């Protein structure tokens, strides 16, 4: 990742925060908020789910079903059982690593 990309991210991320604080706050934003809120409320769900999918089965320009899938399935079960964050990630990594160790 280049410093240029990093700088662009810094400016962009602060820009969005500042728009809210300076431009939107204190004005009647009812119309804008009402129109955008249903979409923006769902963006994390759609993007996070896509990230999970891409990182689980994506490989270059193809799909690959491998040890990652087992680890992520374990994470889904752990998260569903309300396991703490560290335990969820730890169990997933251990499962994937164990399968690779056994297979390799």
């Amino acid at each position: 990742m280049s410093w240029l990309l990093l700088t662009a991210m810094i400016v962009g991320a602060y820009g969005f925060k500042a728009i809210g604080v300076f431009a939107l706050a204190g004005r009647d934003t009812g119309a804008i908020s009402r129109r955008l809120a249903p979409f923006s409320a769902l963006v994390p769900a759609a993007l996070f789910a896509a990230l999970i999918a891409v990182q689980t089965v994506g490989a270059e320009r193809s799909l690959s079903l491998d040890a990652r899938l087992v680890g992520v399935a374990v994470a889904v079960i752990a998260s569903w059982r309300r396991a703490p964050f560290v335990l969820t990630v730890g169990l997933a990594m251990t499962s994937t690593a164990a399968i690779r160790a056994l297979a390799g």
Partner: protein
Amino acid sequence: MTPHRRQATVLVAAVGVVGVTFGVLADAAGLSIPKIVVMSALVFTGASQFAAVGVVSGGGTPFAAFGSAMLLAARNALYGPVVNRALPNSTSGRVVAAQFVIDETTAMSAAQPDDRMAADAFWFTGIWLWCLWVLGSVAGAVLGSFIGDPNAWGLDTAFPASFVALISPHLRTSPARFAAVMGAAIAVVAIPFTPAGVPLLLAALGVVPAVWRHPRGPSHQAPGTVES
């Protein structure tokens, strides 16, 4: 310690752990420690950082990394009006405060019964979260450089597994679950046909059918927070 500070402390500790994960992943994606520190201190919005690093480690273009990071950063603009009552009136104060307008500070300050407590919750959560996020990132980056081949430790699963944990507070409503399924489906279908990072950008379109399907869906919910 007041209840909201105690609650914020738990939240901040959890975010510190997520910071360690971010540091390890950013190190595995090839970022130097100075870049990791600068990103956590100045970009300071976790989801965007994870997304950008994920796209870069998957071989995506800088444009795709920037695009997915900005899609996730855009929601912070909607938080300004929500935290307005907790912010200082002076311009200089607001310039500083803007950096701290994120999921966790918005959720904490919005939950307070009066303006004074909202301000206290905003700054207490914001400042400690910033410290722990930066410290956690550095710790993760240092840890990552000792690990060797990260995949032998299942580290490539740490990223999606982190997001499995992070996504759960965002799946409480039916439109959100629909958007998640749409997003994942679009991304998987797009993987063989598009360069890395693009499936993620396309996945954002998953919110459109979700909103159409539930036109009166969630009006303006309290933002999701990281669950420990």
